[in-house]
């Protein structure tokens, strides 16, 4: 693998780079190089054997990809949201599973502890999460409640000096390998609360979910809580109501809106190169109009995705981004990334289905990404409600 050469060329048709600071570009190039050196040479093998490359965790931590927007006093890097986007974009160019690991650790574990946790909780968990010494997961989705988390069945019962947690969570990234879990459950008043579970708490069980055709290089698990005694100091004191976990998802979705640009661009770049080399009827297939039309559509969508993500990042930095704007970016960018992966697969013909090229892996990964963190359809309804004022959820 030492002789692996990443031929990837970044595509910046509208000179979006001119809108970025030098710092953003240094962040992007650093993560890009790490992905080229450490992820791309091994990721196909791990995806084929359906295993998360755990050995990359300390390196992700060393790089600073875990909690990059968290202030340095808690172990983060204190970077802005566009830098965070640069990180997820480059990680997802490697694989959505690697990006998912970093997204969950950063946006769904470190962010809620930072935003809703006590000072003691922040000091106890954040530095270790940033160093990758603790792996975190986020438990919101349940077997019977995905798009409708408000109907969750997990319950927290006050038992004097502690709470008792019962219920289960499903489709949890990092679920079976987590050291800690930020879990959301309703208290006796029906208010959603967040608690930090540690893996050795009695009654807390973690199971891997097998036989996935997507995110194969990522851990997905199920969490089961059977009368788990949760110390009261493990409750996130500032989180009250469903708004708290949803605010975490807004962070993660923002990262996804950038991340999928990486997957799309990796597919597009592969397809462009292939179309110039592969010959049929005596000339490169890139010289045929139907192939050119596909490539033109892909580059157009990638350019739009870049501009949406950049503008949203600017709004995030200014504290002005609304969750609905994040929905638009997640919905649009994931949808088009998936289309780009499918079209790239078609350009590569039979070669596109093999592990010799990254396309089929990205395409299958994106089938999860269009479902998790709010399905494409739910984000459509979020926008529909924002446009019309009518709630079509219920």
């Amino acid at each position, binding site marked *: 693998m030492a002789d692996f*050469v*990443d*031929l*990837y*060329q*970044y*595509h*910046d048709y509208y000179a979006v780079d001119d809108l970025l600071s*030098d*710092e953003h*570009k*240094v*962040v992007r*190039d*650093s993560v890009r*190089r*790490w992905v080229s050196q450490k992820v791309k040479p091994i990721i196909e093998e791990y995806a084929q054997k359906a295993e998360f490359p755990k050995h990359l965790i300390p390196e992700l931590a*060393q*790089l*600073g*990809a875990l909690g*990059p927007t968290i202030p*340095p006093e808690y172990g983060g*890097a*204190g*970077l802005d949201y566009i*830098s965070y986007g640069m*990180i997820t974009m480059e990680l997802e160019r490697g694989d959505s599973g690697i990006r998912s690991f970093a997204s969950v650790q950063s946006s769904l574990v470190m962010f809620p502890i930072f935003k809703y946790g006590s000072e003691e909780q922040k000091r106890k968990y954040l530095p270790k999460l940033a160093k990758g010494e603790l792996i975190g997961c986020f438990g919101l989705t349940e077997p019977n409640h995905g798009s409708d988390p408000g109907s969750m069945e997990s319950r927290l019962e006050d038992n004097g000096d502690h709470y008792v947690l019962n219920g289960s969570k499903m489709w949890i990234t990092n679920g079976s390998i987590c050291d800690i879990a930020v879990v959301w459950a309703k208290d006796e008043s029906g208010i959603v609360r967040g608690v930090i579970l540690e893996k050795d708490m009695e009654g807390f069980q973690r199971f891997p979910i097998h036989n996935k055709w997507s995110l194969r290089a990522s851990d997905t698990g199920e969490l089961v809580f059977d009368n788990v005694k949760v110390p009261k100091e493990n409750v996130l004191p500032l989180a009250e109501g469903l708004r708290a976990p949803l605010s975490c998802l807004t962070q993660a979705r923002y990262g996804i809106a950038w991340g999928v640009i990486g997957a799309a661009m990796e597919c597009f770049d592969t397809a462009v190169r292939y179309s110039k080399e592969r010959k049929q009827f005596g000339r490169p297939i890139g010289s045929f109009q139907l192939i050119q039309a596909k490539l033109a559509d892909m580059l157009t969508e990638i350019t739009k995705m870049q501009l949406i993500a950049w503008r949203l990042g600017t709004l995030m930095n200014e504290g002005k981004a609304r969750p609905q704007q994040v929905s638009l970016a997640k919905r649009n960018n994931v949808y088009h990334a998936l289309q780009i992966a499918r079209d790239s697969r078609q350009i590569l013909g039979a070669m596109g289905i093999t592990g010799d090229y990254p396309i089929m892996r990205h395409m299958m990964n994106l089938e999860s990404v269009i479902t998790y963190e709010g399905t494409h359809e739910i984000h459509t309804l979020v926008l529909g409600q924002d446009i019309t004022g009518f709630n079509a959820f219920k």
Partner: protein
Amino acid sequence: MKILVAIARTPDTTAPIDFVDDGRKYKEEGVQFIINPYDEFALAKAMDIKDERQDVEVTVISVDSNKADQLLRKALAVGADKAVRIDIEPEDAWQTAGEIVEWIKKSGEQFDLIFTGKETINYNGGLVGGYIASLLGYTYVPETYKLSIMDDGKLDIVREIEGGKVYLKTTMPAVITAVEYLAEPRLPSMRGIMQARTKPFSVEQPTGIEPLTTTVKHYLPPQRKECKLIDPENIEELVEILHKEIKVI
């Protein structure tokens, strides 16, 4: 100890090669630029020395337009203490070296070691290090593969030569040019990038050193003709081609 590392901006190793301005200039549009890989080895060595010893200050310098700012920021993010950019895109190595030396003299800095790469990967001149050494009267050790600073302050060096290696000893101040393996290049961490924000970064005006050479035109190698395959059973065709087309028989 004060160390200066001179870095150049070069196209990424996989970047497409094309020219504009009637072949006079490299087409930069859409190209990603990196720190010249040999300069990265040099920078990494300076960082290793900084890690091993106390009181080491590393300054990184580039003679270039603001297109190099991102690369200087990266150098700060991996641990350099100061960055200096001389604000001109140089035409040749003489201009680059001359501007660096003029800045050193003007700033009054006394560098014990000056590192740079053995050459850039786009023009392969390999002259900047030698020019700087001769202009400053420093020892010059090109193509250095290994370097240790001994307790007596002398340098133990291994150089690559054709078909082998040579060990030598020398003294500081010295200009050292790097080959692969002098040190492992470092990736800037997010933390390092954040810390680089507050490090000194100065942009200096050029002093007007004139280049000694001017690039007139770039050429790409001629495209290789397609290989023609001839069936081994069809010797007549081979003979015909060799006789009529290539005219060797």
